[in-house]
């Protein structure tokens, strides 16, 4: 068990999972750098963390889809000990399939942008010889399904990216953790009918991530049942899989 490396940079800090993560890290005594497109919207969260946990909180603006990540990374007050990439965009499959610009946004927010940003941070952590990189990917990236393969393929790319980065950094002192939350009850999934046994609360996701980081895990599914379900889904022969309505 090791204490998470401080400060913790959370990218995409406006989401429900990110807010729960910020609370969990602050409760562990970590300083926080919260990055979001609109950092002003995080002011209430920041003051809450400062009062509750006496956490040092810095708010910074960040657009993950920016073509060049260097200006953002060099503007950070310090190179973080831990970076958590929470940014993501579910999008709507039908819209993404019909409109290239919409698909491009989903791809940029779930793969291109996060990968570019993490590469830039990883280079610096590698040079320093320490750090933790945590990426929130998705079970949707394990097999492309007709109902959400634009999002799924971008997450598949992100999962592969994280696994390769882990391999590359394994002996460089930098821990890379891939998180596959499964269903989470958040604003992103509001209005969907989600099976309760497979659905986590944002606080559970945050706790699972911190535990996995402290134990040095590589891949974490928040609800263990998902690991089994995805193993089955991956094992279905393509000839059968293509005929299923998923």
């Amino acid at each position, binding site marked *: 068990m090791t204490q998470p490396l401080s400060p913790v940079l959370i990218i995409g800090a406006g989401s429900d999972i990110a807010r729960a993560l910020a609370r969990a890290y602050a409760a562990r005594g970590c300083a926080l750098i919260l990055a979001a497109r609109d950092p002003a919207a995080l002011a*209430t969260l920041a003051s*809450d963390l400062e*009062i*509750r*946990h006496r956490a040092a909180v810095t708010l910074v603006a960040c657009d993950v889809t920016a073509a060049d990540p260097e200006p953002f990374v060099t503007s950070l007050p310090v190179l973080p000990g831990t970076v958590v990439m929470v940014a993501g965009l579910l999008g709507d499959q039908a819209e993404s399939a019909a409109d290239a610009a919409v698909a491009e946004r989903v791809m940029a927010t779930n793969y291109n942008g996060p990968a570019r940003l993490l590469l830039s941070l990883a280079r610096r952590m590698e040079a320093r010889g320490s750090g933790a990189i945590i990426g929130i990917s998705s079970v949707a990236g394990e097999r492309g399904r007709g109902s959400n393969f634009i999002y799924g393929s971008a997450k598949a790319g992100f999962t592969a990216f994280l696994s390769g980065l882990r391999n590359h950094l394994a002996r460089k002192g930098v821990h890379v953790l891939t998180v596959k939350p499964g269903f989470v009850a958040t604003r992103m999934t509001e209005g969907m009918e989600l099976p309760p046994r497979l659905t986590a609360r944002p606080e559970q996701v945050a706790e699972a991530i911190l535990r996995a980081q402290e134990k040095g895990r590589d891949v974490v599914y928040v609800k263990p049942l998902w690991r089994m379900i995805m193993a089955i889904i991956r094992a279905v022969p393509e000839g059968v899989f293509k005929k299923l309505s998923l």
Partner: protein
Amino acid sequence: MLSGWGRWPIARCAVTEPGTSAAAGAALADFTSIIPRGNGRSYGDASLNPDGVLLTSRLGHMLTLDEAAGVLECEGGTLLSDIIEALLPRGWFAPVTPGTRFVTVGGMIAADVHGKNHHGAGGFGGHLLWLDLALPDGRVLRCSPAEHEELFAATCGGMGLTGLILRAAFRLLRVETARIRQRTVRAPDLDAAFAIFESAQDWTYSVAWIDGLQTDARLGRSLLFLGEHARAEELPLAERSRPFARAARAPKRVPIDFPAIALSRLPVRAFNTLYYQRQRPGDALVDLYPYFYPLDALLEWNRIYGRRGFVQYQCVLPLAESRAGMRRLLEAIARGGNASFLAVLKRMGAESFGHLSFPMEGYTLAMDFPTSTGNLALLDRLDAITAEHGGRIYLAKDARAAPATMRGYPRLERFRAVRRDYGLVGRLESLQSQRLEIG
């Protein structure tokens, strides 16, 4: 499906759980009829509305802490338990706390909650500097004793019927330790209990646990618990360097709904007698948590009343009528033979400015009853006795009273006028406000 803490009644309600103040304001405008709900600790139907319930669970941020002035500013959904956890180690406590810490600041204002220090400190509303109230017409108004005073007076104790409390600022209480110096006193009957209360007015905290099943000479047999925040020098030497340390005790949870037999007359009588004899009179240093929140250590304790749920009854009688009125109430309860697990008697201080604020100078009695037709009939008799003695019932506990009981609130007409002036009639409503015809 939602219910209050008493698990009766239950109603299917459309809910919304906004994540920002702006979204909350929009929800107030969107729903034709809605009621805010904090942590669901009012007992009856005060936070139920089939047409719309606004959950404030995601609006619980602490905004500023001014340690020089001892003032906390926070969102309405902030839990008192979170505030105490964050601030007690820094020497701050709530100026007024109800018997559970699992309440929101918005809920504390809406019920104008009182605590064991009401005789000296008054209700929670008296410690507010201001509150920001969102109205269904989109306005957000800062209300205080100096701004929008009528709306402020209607909101403190107004059961959420004046709008959504987005933010509030209130004064904190300085404490030196996380301990209470407690004095336990036995009162063999009701007269003795009154005498002790009247002579204990200088104590910051006072409350009596009363055995509701005793009759005749032992009617009102009770244990009084008086308390003061322990000063640092009152701690044992070894503990003085860490005055806010407390024993970490994992809360227990009630795992099942109890069967009805568990609360029939005999077991409760046995428990009450045992409890009375076990508590040693005298002084002791006790942890602050079990002193203020004995039932919070038992999560979901409401399940001991089983699936049918329970109703809590709490009334207050004016000082001059207290002795005669309480005797009649206790006689009716003892004669009813309906087990009451927890009965509490407390001396209250002066009435507050809140139009529907519950406390008045006098005595308040609170107890639980398992939901049953017999008990509901008994509560109607208690309402009648309360009314005959010029008292009133506590809306945060109520689940079943008739509209006529609102006569206990002489400023109801002013409350109604505020509702009309700010366009709230029909927009902010609960099953309780409809049942009591608050209008």
